[in-house]
C-alpha cells in the first residue's frame, strides 16, 4: 500500500461530513466491497460478523445505535436526553440546512446518543457517537449530553463506556463548541474523583477537539483496529510540515506503540472485554 492510498480514505477529518469512503454499509444493498481488500461481501454476512470484513478484518463504521446493540444486553438500553436538538445559536450561514440534512441522513437529532444499559447484567452509562451526523462533530448539544451522562453516572455510582468517532469541534457553533471540551473534561474529572471507571473505545476516525478532551481521558483507552486517531488530521499535518507521513501514522496500532492506547481490540471480542473489565473493577450484575 503506498502512502497515498493510506492517507486517501481517511482525509475527511475536519468536519467534511460528505465523506463517501468507509461509510457505514447500506442495508438495502446486497453486496458491499471492502475498502481495504476489495472483497465483495454479502451484507448479511457482514451484519453477522459485527460489520467486520471476514477476509482482512477491516472494521466498517457503524452508527451509534448499531454500536449500542453490539455491546448491550438485549432491550436494556434506556436513552437519556433523547429530545435535545442542536440549534443555530450563533446564526452561522448554512448551518440550519446542514442540521436538517444531517437529521434526515442519520435519523438522529445530534452526533451522540447517551443512555444506560446492561452489559452481561452489569449496569453502565453508555455514550455512542455517530459519524453520520456532521462527521460526529461536537457542538453544544453534544457536549451537554455527554456532560449530563457523566453527571448521571457520578450521581448513581455507575461506570461510563464511551465510543468516540468525531471530526472534532463543530465550527458552526464557534467558540461555544470549543468550550464543550472543557465542560466534558470537567464532568469526566468529577466522575473520576468519585472513584468510578471510565472506558473509552476510539473508533475510526477520532480527532480534533474530541481527541483533545474526553476521548483521551479514560482510565482505560481501547481502540478499534486500523482506526485513525489524531489531534491534527494527516492532511493538516502534511500541509503544515510539507513532508510525507510515515506509514500507518496515527492508526490505533501506532498509538498503542507510542503508549497512548491501552489495547487495540477486535470488535468481535469487544463485549466480552468490556464485561471482564467491569468485573475486574468490582461492578456486579443487577437484577
Amino acid at each position, binding site marked *: 500500500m503506498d502512502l497515498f492510498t493510506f492517507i486517501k480514505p481517511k482525509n475527511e477529518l475536519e468536519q467534511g461530513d460528505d465523506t463517501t469512503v468507509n461509510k457505514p454499509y447500506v442495508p438495502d444493498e446486497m453486496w458491499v466491497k471492502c475498502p481495504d481488500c476489495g472483497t465483495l461481501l454479502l451484507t448479511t454476512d457482514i451484519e453477522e460478523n459485527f460489520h467486520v470484513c471476514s477476509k482482512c478484518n477491516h472494521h466498517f463504521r457503524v452508527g451509534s445505535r448499531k454500536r449500542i446493540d453490539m455491546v448491550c444486553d438485549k432491550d436494556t438500553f434506556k436513552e437519556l436526553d433523547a429530545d435535545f436538538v442542536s440549534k443555530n445559536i*450563533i446564526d452561522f450561514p448554512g448551518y440550519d440546512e446542514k442540521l436538517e440534512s444531517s437529521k434526515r441522513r442519520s435519523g438522529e437529532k445530534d452526533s451522540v446518543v447517551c443512555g444506560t444499559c446492561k452489559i452481561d447484567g452489569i449496569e453502565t452509562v453508555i455514550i455512542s457517537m455517530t459519524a453520520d451526523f456532521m462527521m460526529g462533530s461536537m457542538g453544544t448539544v453534544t457536549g451537554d449530553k455527554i456532560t449530563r451522562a457523566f453527571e448521571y453516572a457520578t450521581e448513581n455510582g455507575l461506570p461510563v463506556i464511551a465510543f468516540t468517532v468525531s471530526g472534532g*469541534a*463543530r465550527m458552526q457553533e464557534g467558540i461555544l463548541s470549543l*468550550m464543550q471540551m472543557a465542560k466534558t473534561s*470537567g464532568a469526566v474529572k*468529577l466522575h473520576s474523583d468519585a472513584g468510578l471507571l471510565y472506558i473509552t473505545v476510539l473508533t475510526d476516525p477520532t480527532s480534533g477537539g474530541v481527541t*483533545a478532551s474526553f*476521548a483521551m*481521558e479514560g482510565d482505560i483507552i481501547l481502540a478499534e483496529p486500523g482506526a485513525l486517531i489524531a489531534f491534527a488530521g494527516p492532511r493538516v499535518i502534511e500541509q503544515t510540515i510539507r513532508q510525507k507521513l510515515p506509514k500507518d*501514522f496515527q492508526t490505533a496500532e501506532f498509538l498503542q506503540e507510542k503508549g497512548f492506547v491501552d489495547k487495540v481490540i477486535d470488535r468481535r471480542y469487544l463485549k466480552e472485554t468490556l464485561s471482564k473489565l467491569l468485573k475486574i473493577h468490582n461492578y456486579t450484575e443487577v437484577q
Partner: protein
Amino acid sequence: MSAYDNVLAARSTKKLTSLDYINALFGDSFIELHGDRNFADDKAVVGGVGMLNDIPVTVIGLEKGRNTKERMERNFGAAHPEGYRKALRLMKQAEKFHRPILCFVDTSGAFCGIGAEERGQGHAIATNLMEMMALKTPILSVFIGEGGSGGAIALAVADEVWMMENAVYSVISPEGCASILWKDSSKAAEAAECLKMTAKDLFNLGVIERILREPTAGDQKMFESMKLLICRTFEKNLAVSGEELARLRYNRFRKIGQQ
C-alpha cells in the same frame, strides 16, 4: 474595524508577547522554571514564579518570540505536548503552595506535526483541561493576541478569562474555516465575521469576563493598573476555599451551551 482586521491585528508581530507582559508586571522578581520533567523544555511555553505586588504567583505564557530568531526558537508560540505538560507541572506546583496562577494566551494553535502527534498532543491538552478544572487554587487567563482553538483553551480553563481589546479566540482559524466549509481560504474575512471571535463577541456570548485596554510598550502606568486589577481578582479568589473555586470553575463552563 472588521473581525478580520481584528484577527490581523491580533497576529501582528508588533504586538506585545507574553514575556513583555511578564517583564512589565513581575519585573526582577520573575524566575523562569524550565521543562516538563519528562521529555524536554518547550520554548513555546514560558513559565515560572514571581511576585505580583506582594502576592507570590505562578505565571505561564504561550510565547511567540519578539524577533525572527526568537520566533524560530519558540516555534511561533505553537506548543508541543511537552509545553502543555510543563504548564501543567507548574500549575500543580502552584496548587501545592496555594499560589494563584496567571496564564497568558497567544498562539495560532497547538503545533501540528509528527513529533507532536507521536507524543500525544491530544492527550496532553485533554489532561490539562481535566486537571485545570479541579485545581484548588485561583486561575486567571488573559488572551493577549491569538487564541487558537485547543492549543489556547489548554491554558484557559480558569476562574475568569480576560481578553485584550484586540485579541481573538476561536475554535478554528478563519482561513481554515473558509477552506473547509467553502473550499476557498480567500473567504477568511467572511469566516471571521461568522465565527464570532472578537473580544466583544466573546463577551456577549458569556465566554469571557472582561475586556482590557491594551498597554503599549513602556507605558508603565497602564501595566500598574493591569497589575492592580489582577491582584484584586487573586485576593478575592484566595479568600475562597480551593474546593469551592473548583466547583465554581466547573459551573462557569457547565452553563455554556447548557440545554
